[in-house]
């Protein structure tokens, strides 16, 4: 049986030892830390369920009931449907195109947006055409590019943890692909739509052949006044690709479903690379679930955005009341200066049943990414944070 102490120990080793860029690239972003731990034994299941998971930016409530019902319905009368190759991609593409106001030719589906990010990196960077991104950002593209031997240019954030668009545009000269994660994981900040459009136009002037991949994974959580998708731009401009996922606000991280929206020329390039393996990586339950998820309309994501914002405000205020600054979050996680090395904070919280985010260099010495659970979970979690940070009784400020 796995003890809590042993669990902490193995995780700690992973954090210290193996989180190189190539490792992260090989395993993907959200599981970079956790996959290093000794797998929980079956007898550890009960314990794992008591852990509050605030490490992977998931929707703590999961998908809507209609989505789960759609999965069960997908079994078919004799339960044979999971035995058939997926034949629902057409239905999902239709549902998505109606929802987004695009044509099916503007869409390609992926096994999570991971597949979209990897494919774009594969086809748009070369040994002489770099990947450009901020540091930190979601590591998938940079890790994958590094693994392929493609150069990576990393641009620091500005003082407010916003993307430095001037620096980023300058770095794009001659690059193959700019990875533009907005809102930006792990720092949670959002760049307004007009500033993004200006940035894209500037990159086009400086470096006309450079592609820009706008990752809108956290789009549904944004509460910024200048909040618009770059999808309309992408429809007209084959150099802009928008990546989306069902893993965040839709609560379907376990189903592995994402998509790209782009000009048909770009879609052809992306799907041709996968040589037929694109849709074949999608499980049939995810396809049915995706259709049902879209069918919920915006009411579902609106409610999730409102729920998340209340939890976010509560959690940010808890830290602020104790003198700890968070960035301006437009996501379902916050990036907070606890004043403590992320690893130490993480290990401390883990020992008390709360799992927080991995290290994000260069900020790992003071800042931590904390995914937002339910209000109930966060109420428990902040009590743990207080104990770990030594700020139990009164506000430190």
């Amino acid at each position: 049986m796995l003890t809590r102490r042993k669990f902490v120990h193995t995780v700690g080793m992973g954090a210290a030892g193996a989180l190189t860029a190539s490792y992260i690239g090989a395993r993907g972003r959200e599981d970079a830390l956790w996959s290093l731990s000794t797998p929980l034994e079956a007898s550890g299941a009960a314990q794992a369920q008591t852990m509050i998971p605030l490490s992977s930016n998931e929707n703590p409530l999961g998908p809507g009931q209609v989505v789960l019902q759609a999965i069960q319905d997908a079994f078919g009368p004799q339960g044979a449907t999971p035995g058939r190759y997926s034949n629902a991609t057409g239905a999902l593409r239709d549902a998505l195109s109606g929802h987004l106001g695009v044509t099916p030719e503007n869409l390609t589906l992926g096994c999570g947006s991971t597949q979209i990010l990897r494919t774009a990196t594969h086809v748009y960077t070369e040994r002489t055409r770099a990947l450009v991104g901020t540091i930190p950002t979601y590591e998938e593209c940079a890790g994958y590019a590094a693994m392929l031997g493609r150069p990576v240019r990393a641009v620091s954030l500005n003082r407010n943890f916003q993307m430095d668009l001037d620096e980023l545009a300058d770095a794009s000269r001659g690059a193959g692909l700019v990875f533009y994660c907005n809102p930006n994981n792990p720092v949670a900040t959002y760049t307004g739509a007009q500033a993004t459009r200006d940035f894209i136009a500037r990159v086009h002037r400086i470096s006309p052949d450079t592609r820009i991949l706008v990752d809108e994974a956290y789009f549904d959580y944004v509460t910024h006044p200048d909040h618009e998708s770059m999808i309309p731009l992408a429809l007209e401009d084959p150099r802009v690709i928008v990546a989306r996922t069902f893993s965040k606000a839709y609560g379907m991280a376990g189903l592995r479903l994402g998509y790209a929206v782009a000009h048909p020329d770009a879609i052809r390039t992306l799907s041709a690379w996968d040589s037929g393996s694109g849709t074949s990586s999608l499980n049939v339950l995810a396809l049915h679930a995706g259709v049902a998820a879209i069918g919920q309309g915006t009411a579902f994501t609106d409610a999730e955005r409102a729920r998340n914002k209340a939890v976010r405000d509560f959690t940010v205020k808890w830290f602020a009341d104790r003198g700890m600054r968070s960035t301006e979050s437009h996501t379902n996680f916050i990036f907070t200066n606890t004043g403590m090395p992320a690893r130490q904070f993480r290990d401390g919280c883990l020992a008390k049943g709360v799992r927080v985010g991995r290290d994000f260099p260069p900020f790992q010495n003071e800042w931590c990414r904390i995914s937002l659970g339910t209000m109930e979970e966060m109420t428990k979690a902040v009590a743990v944070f207080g104990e770990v940070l030594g700020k139990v009784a009164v506000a430190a400020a």
Partner: protein
Amino acid sequence: MSVTRRGFLTLKRPGGRVVTPSAGALPPGWLDGSAIGARGLEAEAAEEWQAVGRRGGARPDGPSGPSIKLSSNENPLGPGRAVLDAITAGFGNAGRYPFNVNPGDGQLLEMIAAGNNAQTENVVLGAGSQEILKVAVWAFTSPSRPLVTASPTFENATRVARNMGHPVVEINVDSRFRLDLESMLATVRGAGLVFVNNPNNPTATVHGGKTIADFVERVRRISPDTVILIDEAYHEYVTDPDYESAIPLALSTPNVFVARTFSKAYGMAGMRIGYGVGTADTIAPITRLRMPYNISVFGVAAAMAALGDPAHVEAERTRNTAVRAFTQKALEDLGCQCTASNTNFVFADIGRPNAEFRSACAEQGIQTGRDFPPFTGSHARISLGTMEEMQKATAVFRNVLRPATPVGGGTR
């Protein structure tokens, strides 16, 4: 009547044509990007029918009810109850990444490793075995290191290599529709990857364990850096007593690995789960390149439940063997010889273009397999459904095949 292997070699159709599979020349460009489009293989075949329905053309459903799908080599019964229960039991995990769920993909990896007397470093999980094949082509071929494969065979590796601009060497199957290992051997020097589909889709034939082991040994001698991928997607359906899985060989031999899938006998094609097994050094590059958390939480739960229910697979093998014998006999009674099938499909000489046969069957509610050059003019791949489905299907085959005069079978 039943056809012996010896008799098969010289068998003539009523039209007098002798089947000489390895003489067939590939039509130029038969597998180029435009012909294939952007999707894949068995999944593509499945979607083709849906697209037909959506366009309002020929309906996938026949006049007498829903169509019977014999086009994608699926288990018609799907997974067992244990698997479906495992999926619904996992509903609470739908919002969590697979690595945050217990049991998660790490535990599935351990279970597969243990079942093959291997360590987790010997196993890699794929979103279907197609991902394993795709990544293997990425990892092991290059502009100067070709893919050596067969024709016809499962096209995935060929397509990926062509897409990358990496050279592909295709060796036609032999006169018994088996992989022509001897001819493949003559081309392996300096190759990046050799793809050996055993049993071979679409020809349904299998090579024995000793033949495969000898082939591997000779490749290793001729070209030690060449990686050999043995795709055993139909492993569970094999009834040839000479057959052995190459997994023990792969675990003890550098540069050899085996791909397996839950899509066939396990009845979980829709769940997209496959895996590769080999030495740690051979598997490592595949693990690096495969997508992280490529198996859904339901896929993980389903696969673990399936591995815990071996009786389901055993029953499926028995069921399929009976349906196969019935179907082969019905086709042979119509003068259509079948290859020696060790799979859940048959490859039958229908003596006419497959497209013609397929359309005619579709009109009557039966979906059969896509074209397989160079045998598009003569052969159909027919996946095996349930016995009841095959009784209906063979009645349709009789309607379709009897009145027609065989036209130009085999020639193009």
